[in-house]
């Protein structure tokens, strides 16, 4: 006679409610796993999905994602002339927040050479890449824009010609791809009044320095901030070229910093992502511990509730294996069913979750293993308690 199954059947409502409760907790654990891995995946997505071998950035900077980097727009020409370089393209990337689709949305604008340059969108699921020099854009599906939709960015209206999926920046915000000049235009756009105020302030400075109004007006363009900088130059190496040698050459002769994609990835993981990953990792560990403790307590309470029955079983001569099986089966049933519930629920939650959730099968399996081990340890504790229960507890009123 399977006592565990009989008990579960008689208290099905209570058992199901317990499974749902524990399952919800385990769902949070699994979602936390997903957030943790999603945070890392988002963080390095742009680096890993930009088809480039080397990232050339401003000297002494850890750019272009961890730190701002500004290099002259024509620097890519010098880089392209370096031995071992097959192609070099200018690249800009910056965060923006605008009203899009009726809501204020944060996203990252990527500007690249749309005529065969590196750094363009790789995951277009609808539409096409940008073909025109101006006023076309490719946007990620997260922004909720439709093909053909016209979007005001800066002073110009851009038409959505392509949609990507899961193209995100290190913060999980969607990407918008523009042609390099459009991206620079949006980046350095200024309100007309602000432009006039800056112009007036510059004129005043020149006049105070002794220039006539006419001279000052002529000098004014030289004082204006440069608007044709880029954040990085992306490099594709020639077949057989040594990345280290090319990097050394660019560093020594052009005075830029150069990172391979692997180094750029490390910069991101050890820089911007480290603290967040640490926080998420800590929460994840705490949740796992809390879940195990709760499962252990539930298993223990389930056993304590039956302690008089266990004493009776011992008194009437039931062998220990009957009692061990009763406790162990219930503990395993609770753990496995709760985890299965959590697993199914995460499938429902994932598409609706506001951030990227990445579930690694081996991590999910490891979490299951830890929970199962916790359940087994809890049931062993309960069994230890049950086997120490004196049979005479069954006697008396």
């Amino acid at each position: 006679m399977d006592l565990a199954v009989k008990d579960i059947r008689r208290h099905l409502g209570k058992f199901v409610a317990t499974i749902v409760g524990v399952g919800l907790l385990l769902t949070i654990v699994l979602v936390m796993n997903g957030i943790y891995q999603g945070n890392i995946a988002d963080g390095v997505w742009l680096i890993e999905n930009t088809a480039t071998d080397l990232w050339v950035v401003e000297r002494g900077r850890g750019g272009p994602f961890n730190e701002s980097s500004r290099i002259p727009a024509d620097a890519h020409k010098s880089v392209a002339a370096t031995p071992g370089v097959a192609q070099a393209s200018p690249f800009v990337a910056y965060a923006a927040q605008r009203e899009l689709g009726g809501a204020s949305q944060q996203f990252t604008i990527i500007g690249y050479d749309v005529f065969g340059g590196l750094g363009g969108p790789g995951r277009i699921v609808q539409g096409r890449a940008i073909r025109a020099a101006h006023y076309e854009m490719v946007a990620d599906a997260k922004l909720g824009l439709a093909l053909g939709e016209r979007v005001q960015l800066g002073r110009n209206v851009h038409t959505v010609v392509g949609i990507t999926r899961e193209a995100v920046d290190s913060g999980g915000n969607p990407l918008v791809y523009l042609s390099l000049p459009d991206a620079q235009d949006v980046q350095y756009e200024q309100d007309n009044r602000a432009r006039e105020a800056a112009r007036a302030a510059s004129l005043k400075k020149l006049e105070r320095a002794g220039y006539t109004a006419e001279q000052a007006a002529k000098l004014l363009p030289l004082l204006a901030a440069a608007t044709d900088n880029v954040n990085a130059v992306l490099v594709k190496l020639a077949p057989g070229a040594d990345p280290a040698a090319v990097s050394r050459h660019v560093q020594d002769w052009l005075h830029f910093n150069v990172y391979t994609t692997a180094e750029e990835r490390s910069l991101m993981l050890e820089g911007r992502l480290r603290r967040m990953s640490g926080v998420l990792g800590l929460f994840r560990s705490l949740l796992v511990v809390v879940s195990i403790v709760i499962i252990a307590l539930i298993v223990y309470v389930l056993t304590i509730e039956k302690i008089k029955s266990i004493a009776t079983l011992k008194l009437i001569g039931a062998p220990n294996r009957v009692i061990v099986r009763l406790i162990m089966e219930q503990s395993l049933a609770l753990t496995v069913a709760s985890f299965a519930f959590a697993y199914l629920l995460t499938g429902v939650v994932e598409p609706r979750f506001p951030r990227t959730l990445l579930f690694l099968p081996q991590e999910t399996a490891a979490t299951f293993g830890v929970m199962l081990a916790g359940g087994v340890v809890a049931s062993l504790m309960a069994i230890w308690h049950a086997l120490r229960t004196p049979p005479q507890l069954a006697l008396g009123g």
Partner: protein
Amino acid sequence: MDRDGAPVLVVEGVAKTFGAGELAVHALKPATFSVAPGELAALLGPSGSGKSTLLLSISLILEPSAGRIAVNGQEVYRDGWTGIDVRRFRRENIGFIFQSHNLIPFLTAQENVALMLQLNGIGAREATRRAREILDYLEIGHRAGALPANLSGGEQQRVAIGRALANSPPLILADEPTAALDTDRGTKVMGLLRKIARERRSAVIAVTHDRRMIEGFDTVYYLEDGRLSRTSQGAAAAH
């Protein structure tokens, strides 16, 4: 009363002392008695008199300090356990009836009885069939599918009796079997125990302080300050 044959239970000089030296408590002074097949014996006495100590010793739960116990012809204790598997021996030779019935709450009446049979290696189908027979014998077969929580106190005690006699044990030990029942139901349970003792030739020992039921016993033992004495036949002891 048919009390032919060798005694089912032999207790010779069984004593139990807790602690040692000046702190020693002699909970049970050397007690000697025997119970024959079909005999219905009562252990009577006030609280703290040693009733539970004696019952636990006979149940092979509490190891006595000295003496000899034999159940169904097998010596189980002689100044120490004789090396038997006490839990298995209990399962095969002793039936228990408790004051608060102690039915497994998530098993039906029939399953509670069948469990005892299955613990002794009877297959599930046969155990279920025999359990039903026992419940019918105890005139509670119509409640076979009910959970203990849905049974009255008297019905629960009948099921508990059914579980105790499921394996036809030679010895049935009852701990205050009528304490939780009113007089009418208690009398019925006593009648049932008597019937079992007579018809199944089991020796029944009941610990009780319920003087209403004393008349029904064949033999009454009285315990006071750990000392056992045989008072008389049940009817005489009641007065």
